[in-house]
């Protein structure tokens, strides 16, 4: 038997007043602190902890050094990029000039801004579409048993094992037949298929959408479509955000696929366009392209960083709070 408390059994768990954004942040920070377990309690030795910390620091440096380099060098002229210390600023400060240059048609090959728009479009349609499909397919695999569901799922998982290089040639031939060469759909359609996304969503849904909730909704007279959108989807949001981020990053950074299907410069995404610049810079000598490439690289990664920061808050758990006892 549980111990009885002094409060009435039905005393409200929390004050009803809605908390402000700031209060919520503060509360969440406090909760994080409360949830943290002191290192000593894991039974680890001080030395072990220090060693692990050192490893993490090294890895962080390894990851951040290129980012730092790109930030410093985005402020420099071409001569300074090669002539000054890479990890500090140098005069003249050309950050804004370099940035402005991105919007100009530098060598008649098309502009950065066009490529940026293309990449954004491909990422939005491809990544968003992949997420939507992964949600639907993952839900189907997680919640329904149908003939062949296991085999189908294994095929999807199996497709993870096929490297993109192995299917390039057949893909190109199929595209040629389907008139998808030089079409934006040639870029978007394959991006819609995300086996990892399906797998992640299936796992996430199994763990976070209780079957009882779906049963309850069925008994409440809701149809399957309505159950998906009204009950399951809101609970899938953190998982969806993970899949969205993965697929957007995947499309954003995709180099190989657009390289083989696009020959029209105006349809290039950033990866291929920047590759083109980089080629020009090395082959045709001094065109003052390096500051542009560095600045272009910085601008290319910025949206992903922003996206990550925005989506981060969805990783907090607690969505299911209060739904299921225990």
């Amino acid at each position: 038997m549980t111990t009885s408390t002094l409060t009435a059994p039905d005393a409200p768990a929390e004050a009803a007043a809605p908390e402000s954004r700031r209060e919520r942040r503060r509360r969440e920070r406090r909760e994080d602190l409360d949830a943290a377990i002191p290192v000593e309690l894991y039974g680890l030795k001080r030395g072990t902890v220090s060693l692990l910390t050192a490893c993490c620091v090294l890895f962080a440096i390894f990851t951040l050094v290129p980012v730092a380099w790109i930030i410093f060098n985005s402020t420099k002229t071409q001569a300074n990029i090669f002539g000054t210390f890479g990890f500090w600023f140098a005069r003249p400060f050309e950050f804004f000039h370099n940035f402005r240059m991105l919007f100009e048609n530098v060598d008649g090959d098309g502009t950065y801004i066009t490529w940026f728009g293309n990449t954004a479009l491909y990422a939005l349609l491809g990544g968003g579409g992949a997420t939507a499909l992964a949600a639907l397919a993952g839900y189907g695999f997680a919640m329904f048993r149908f003939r062949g569901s296991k085999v189908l799922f294994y095929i999807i998982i199996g497709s993870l094992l096929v490297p993109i290089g192995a299917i390039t040639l057949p893909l190109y031939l199929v595209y040629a037949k389907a008139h998808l060469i030089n079409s934006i759909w040639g870029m978007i359609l394959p991006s819609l298929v995300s086996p990892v996304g399906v797998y992640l969503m299936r796992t996430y849904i199994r763990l976070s959408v209780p079957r009882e909730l779906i049963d309850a909704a069925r008994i409440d007279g809701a149809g399957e479509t309505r159950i998906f959108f009204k009950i399951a989807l809101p609970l899938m949001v953190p998982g969806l955000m993970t899949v969205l981020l993965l697929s957007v990053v995947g499309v954003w950074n995709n180099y190989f696929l657009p390289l083989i299907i696009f020959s029209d410069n105006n349809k290039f995404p950033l990866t291929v366009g920047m590759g083109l610049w980089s080629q020009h810079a090395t082959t045709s000598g001094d065109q003052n392209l390096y500051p542009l490439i560095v600045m272009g690289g910085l601008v290319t990664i910025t949206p992903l960083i922003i996206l990550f920061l925005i989506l981060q808050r969805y990783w907090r758990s607690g969505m299911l709070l209060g739904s299921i006892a225990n």
Partner: protein
Amino acid sequence: MAAITLSKLTKVYATGVTALDGLDLSVADGEFVVLVGPSGCGKTTALRMVAGLERITSGMVRLGGRMVNDVSPRQRDVAMVFQNYALYPHLSVYQNLGFALENKKVERAERDRRIRAAATVLGLGDMLGRKPGQLSGGQRQRVAMGRAIVREPSVFLMDEPLSNLDAKLRVQMRSEVLRVHRSIGAATLYVTHDQTEAMTMGDRVAVLRAGVLHQYDTPRALYERPANVFVATFIGSPAMNLYEAALSSDGAFRGQPTVVLGSQRLDLPAQVAARVAAYQGRKVIVGVRPEDLVAGLTGGGGTAGGGTGLVADVRLVEVLGSEQHIYFSIDATQAAVAEGGAVAAEAAEAGILVASAPNGVARLDPRVGVRVGERITFWLDPARLHFFDPDTGHAITG
């Protein structure tokens, strides 16, 4: 016409496990029927089959006379309360209550009226704006009930709705559930593993074990006339004492029939003897409820004042305040309910420990002074003895 009729309802899982074996049961309009049994007895499976959440292997489910075997849950129009409540965590209490009505396309004003009415009945009036995460366990339980009652259902299913509440709140909610049941008057099928809940709440109680219905009757009948040893031990707390015994006719008194219980004899009056006449000279299982044993004087056995004495050694005394449980030992073999539902003698283990281990319990007034190690004589009315066939476990009704 019965609101719920189950005929030969059977569930065999793909693994070959038979969860439910030919259940026949009917629930009348407005009746409150409890399905009770130990875990894994098939009671929840039966409930889920009525709701349409579990495919039926064979047999039939009829709701209000309509066969619904192949009707989807959303078209059966049954309301259900889940063991873990299954509230929609991202919706407010108001939206949780209104979800089913929205699905039924009930007009907004009517919906609002019904949600508020249900909230008032359940005392959730000022919680409507909250999310389930901001409610206490008892409040969540009420929202789960509310979600069912706003639909004004004719069939109400409840799957251990109180099992997640603490003991005190559970007792309080028992009467609350009954109050709600009376106010809506729907035929209710209520699943629990708790025999106290079953006894206190059910108009009729169905006792299940290993997928088989053992008895379906009123709580009083289950208690007074258990159909077999399983029901006898399952209903009532502490459980009925069961012993292996023999019926002989060489009683001390004018050839009166007696129960031979170890070294002791209990004389049976004529009307009790008539009940068990067919078992004269044979072995039986004799059962006596702990509350039918009355503390008498210390000393020898014998017969006095219409009762019969049973001498026992007190091994353990548990004082509960309102009553005390006296664990005693007598030199008879205790009978236990075996897996198959029949009876098996408790394996006799050698050693002093077992010799002194209690094999019976009595429930006495706490003011009766009883000390451990004492020899005590319990008086009991032979008419309150229960007799069971040792082979089948069925009650001997004569």
